[in-house]
């Protein structure tokens, strides 16, 4: 049986751990608020850019824009977004699992798959498995900004225009609420604007005046929309990460509390047993002297 000292030492260790998890939870909560704010700020812009692009595509021919071209699916690129740091529950595992499953399905269809990773966790995951990455970016957790989205978009679009792959999917954690984050897989290229906008717009095409030209608009608007979509995914992922970490740390703190309670109980029992044993020794000794 463990001695009292051992148990006390363990209680102390658990208490220290719980202090760390509590602190991490607070930090995650603060970061979550910040990340969520940025995500919400971007939302109107990204909604509007799709609205504009949707209107544009209804009226003007894309003129064979390279990013809108559809090709038969022979090679697919997966862009996987994870965090840089762990201790955030199943956040990274979920994304990587979903990506692996999708990759397997594609390979079974005889489609070639290439991978790009954002976040240290994804990069290391593939490195450990000796899976080559086409592109990787790490160390941006918590400070992703638009220039990162641009950098990622540049790599993706150049690969797509160069026919290295025919479709691009984005795998990331979507932020639903603080308690739920869901792995989402979206098709990034060939570019399709979401059809969710149920504009009351009657389908008769409006004749727009274009300045300078419809082609000119396509040429700049489509890449921008792609950058925005990547940026949005980055922010969603970041917000989910902090939310996930917060929940994980909350659970860890709770578990630590339970453990301390249980250990304290054991410690008290051991203490009582020791006292009883000592008393019995003394009583036994006294009896022996009497005789």
């Amino acid at each position, binding site marked *: 049986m463990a001695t009292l000292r051992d148990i006390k030492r363990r209680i102390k260790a658990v208490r220290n751990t719980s202090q760390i998890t509590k602190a991490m939870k607070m930090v995650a909560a603060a970061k979550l608020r910040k990340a969520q704010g940025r995500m919400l700020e971007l939302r109107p812009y990204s909604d509007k850019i799709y609205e504009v692009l949707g209107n544009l595509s209804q009226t003007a021919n894309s003129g064979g824009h390279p990013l809108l071209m559809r090709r038969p699916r022979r090679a697919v690129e997966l862009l996987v977004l994870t965090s840089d740091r762990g201790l955030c529950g199943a956040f990274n595992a979920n994304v990587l699992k979903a990506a692996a499953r999708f990759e397997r399905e594609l390979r079974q269809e005889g489609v070639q798959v290439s991978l790009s990773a954002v976040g240290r966790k994804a990069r290391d995951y593939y490195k450990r498995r000796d899976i080559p990455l086409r592109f990787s970016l790490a160390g941006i957790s918590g400070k992703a900004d638009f220039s990162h989205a641009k950098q990622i978009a540049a790599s993706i679009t150049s690969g797509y225009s160069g026919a290295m792959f025919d479709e691009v999917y984005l795998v990331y954690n979507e932020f639903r609420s603080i308690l739920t984050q869901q792995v989402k897989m979206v098709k990034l290229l060939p570019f399709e604007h979401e059809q969710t906008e149920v504009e009351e717009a009657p389908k008769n095409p409006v004749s727009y005046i274009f300045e*300078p030209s419809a082609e000119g608009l396509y040429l700049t608007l489509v890449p921008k929309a792609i950058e*925005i979509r990547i940026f949005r995914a980055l922010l969603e992922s970041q917000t989910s990460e902090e939310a996930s970490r917060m929940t994980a740390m909350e659970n860890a703190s709770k578990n630590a509390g339970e453990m301390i309670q249980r250990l304290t109980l054991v410690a008290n029992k051991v203490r009582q047993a020791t006292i009883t044993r000592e008393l019995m020794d003394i009583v036994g000794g006294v009896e022996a002297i009497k005789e």
Partner: protein
Amino acid sequence: MAEKLYLDIVTPHGKLFSGEVDEVAASGADGDFGVLAGHAPMMAILRIGAFTVKTGEKTDYYFVGSGYAEVLNDKMIVLADSAERAEDIDVERAMEKKKRLELLLAKKENVDFTRAQASLERAIARIRIAKEYAGK
């Protein structure tokens, strides 16, 4: 002119303006243009420059970095990479930036020329708009 124009100015950092206005003047890639209620549907690329909004007697000035504008059914959407109210422009910062970029461009080495140029243009436009606004 009873009709009003509904204007939205959005940037990646949030909504800057949303509401009914009388008249808008913007700097398009092909030249400046004005928009009133009842304007024909239009899509335009905006270059770096001033953006003025008239509502009744009041005129508001904005700085708009490059972006897009769409006009449809008396609704105008402005998608700007960056945008600021004239009164919010940090002139000192813009001045500093201008100086720094001019030096950088003069050296002509190791510079992402187009980016620096665009940055400089933005700084100059900011200063101009802030001054114009102050003069009113």
